[in-house]
C-alpha cells in the first residue's frame, strides 16, 4: 500500500499539523518508503486462534475532525472572547494586575 499527497494532507489535518507544499513531496516519499517495509506484515501467516482473539470489522468512527459539539455556544462559557479565544483577567505576574476581562475593553489576555 502507498499514500498519495491527498492521503498525507488528510492525516495531517486529523493530526492538527500543517504541511506546506515544499515539504509534502518529501514526506510522501518517506512515508511510502517506510510503508513498503511495513507491508511485510501482510505476508505473515495469522494463526486462526490468534486472529479470533481480536474483533474483526470493529466499527470505527469516520476520520474527520469536526468542531467539538457543545450544548451552548463557546462564547457563553466566558465573560468575554476575542478572535475565538477566551479573555481572562491578567495575572499579577504578567504586567498590569487586576484588569478585569469583564470590562470587555480588550485589556484582558487571550
Amino acid at each position, binding site marked *: *500500500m502507498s*499514500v498519495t499527497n491527498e*492521503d*498525507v494532507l*488528510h*492525516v*495531517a489535518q*486529523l*493530526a*492538527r*499539523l*500543517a*504541511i506546506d507544499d515544499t515539504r509534502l513531496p518529501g*514526506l510522501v516519499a*518517506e*512515508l511510502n*518508503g*517506510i*510503508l513498503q*517495509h*511495513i*507491508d*511485510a*506484515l*501482510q505476508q*505473515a501467516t*495469522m*494463526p486462526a486462534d*490468534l*486472529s479470533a*482473539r*481480536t474483533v*474483526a*470489522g*470493529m466499527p*470505527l*468512527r*469516520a*476520520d474527520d475532525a469536526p468542531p467539538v459539539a457543545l450544548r451552548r455556544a463557546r462564547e457563553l462559557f466566558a465573560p468575554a472572547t476575542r*478572535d*475565538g*479565544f477566551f479573555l481572562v483577567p491578567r495575572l499579577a505576574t504578567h504586567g498590569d494586575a487586576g484588569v478585569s476581562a469583564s470590562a470587555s475593553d480588550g485589556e484582558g489576555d487571550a
Partner: protein
Amino acid sequence: MSVESLQAHTVEAAWLQYDAVDAGPTGLNAFLSVDREGSLTAAASIAATPHTAASLAADLAGVPVAIKDNLATLTLPTTCGSRILEGYVSPYEATAVRKLREAGAIVIGKTNMDEFAMGSSTENSAYGPTRNPVDRSRVPGGSSGGSAAAVASGVVRLALGSETGGSVRQPAAFCGIVGVKPTYGRVSRFGLVAYASSLDHVGVFAQNVFDAALGVELIAGHDPYDATCSERPVPALRQSAVVTDHAQPLAGLVVGRPVEYFTDALDPRIHAHCDASLERLRALGAVVRDVSLSHTSLAIPVYYVLAPAEASSNLARYDGVRYGQRRSADGLREMYERTRTGGFGAEVTRRILLGTYVLSAGYYDAYYRRAQTVRELITQDFERVFADGVHVLFTPTAPTPAFRIGEVSDPYDMYLSDIYTVTANLAGIPAMSQPIGLVDGLPVGGQFMAARFDEATMFKAAAALEYAMAAEGGV
C-alpha cells in the same frame, strides 16, 4: 564491585569532568540542563550527615546521577529534546527519579535525547546532536544518547534513560557501557513522558553490571501512580550481579542463541565478538543451545506500526494550551496547527503522520490490528523458548558499531539500528547490553534477554561474562 566504589565518585568530581568534556563546539552536548549550585549544596548537606552503610537508603548517598530529559523533575526543565516543551518544568517528579533521590543520589542534570525518544542516534534533538565520547565524529546511539555519553565519559556513573525499542541498550552498546531495560511493569513509568505506552520502559545506564543491577533494584517496585506497574516483590538484584564461584559460575545455566539474530545483516566482526562471548559462557559452565525466534524479521514492521500509532495519540496533548510553547494565530485550530507544526521536528512529524494513517478507517485492520497479532506471535516465540528450558538468550545488541553523525539519512535504515533490541520491548521481557569487544576502536555490545521478571538470572549471566572478560584484561 561494591556500593562503595560507586560512592567514590563525588559531585565535585562530576563537575570537573563535565567542564572538561561537555561544553564547546566539539563538546559532547550530553546535557540539556544542569543544576551545579543545587547539586553542590545537596552534596555538602549529605557529607555533613553520617549515614549507615547497611541502610538501603544510603546506597547512593552523594552519588551524582543524570536523568534523561523525558523523565519529569521538579528542579530542572523537562523538554524531551523538543522545542514544543522548551522551558517546561513539571509540577511533579517521576517515581524513578524520586526513588534515586531517596537513596541519596544527587541529580546534576537532564540529558540530551532524540525528540520525544524518537530516534536511534540523538541527532533528532532540537538542541543539537550528542557526540560519542569514544569518537566525537560519531553518534552515541539513541534515543537516550545523552545519558549514555554522560556515563561513558565519566561525568556520572549512573544515569536513567528510557526505552521504547532499544533506546537504552543500543546507545550503551555504541558507547561501551552497560544498559538495562527491565521487565515491562518492573519500574514505574509515572513521570515518564509517554511516547508509546505499551512499549515504554525506564532503563538504567552504568559502567558495570553491578552498578546497573543496583540502579534497577533501587528504582523498581510497585507504584500506585502507575497502573501498569507490577506488585511483584523486587529481589536483591545486586546480589545476583556478584560472582562468587570464580570457576564455574554459570554451571547449569542454559543460554539460547537465536539463529535469526546471526544473519548476513550482522557486521561479521560483531558476529565474531558474539561467538567469542558464547565461548566464554561455555567456559563459565553454561550450555549454549541454538534456538529459533521465527517471527524476528517482522519485529521492525510491527514496531513501526504500533509505536507511531500510540505516539500519534500520546502527542495529541501538545496543542499549545496545556504544555510548553504556543504560537499565536487567528483562530483556535490555526493556533493548534501552528504550535504543533512549528514545535515538532521532522522525525516526530513523520511518526505522527504514520501513526495517524495506520489508525485511520480503511487501514486499521491491515496495519494496526495485524501488527498487534504479530506482536503476540513474537511474544509467544520467547515464551516457547523459555518454557523449553532456556534461561537467558545471548545476541548482538546492534548490527553495526556507532555510525558517523549524518551518515544515516534514510528513516528506515535508521530504524534497522534497533533490529535486535525491539523484540524485547514488544515481548515486555528484561534485556541488557554490555561491552564485549571493539571493532576499529569502537565498542560492540552483547545482549542478554531473560523471561519476564527474571532480571536476576540475566544479571548473573552478565556479571559472569564481565568477570571473564576482565580476567582476560578487559574489552
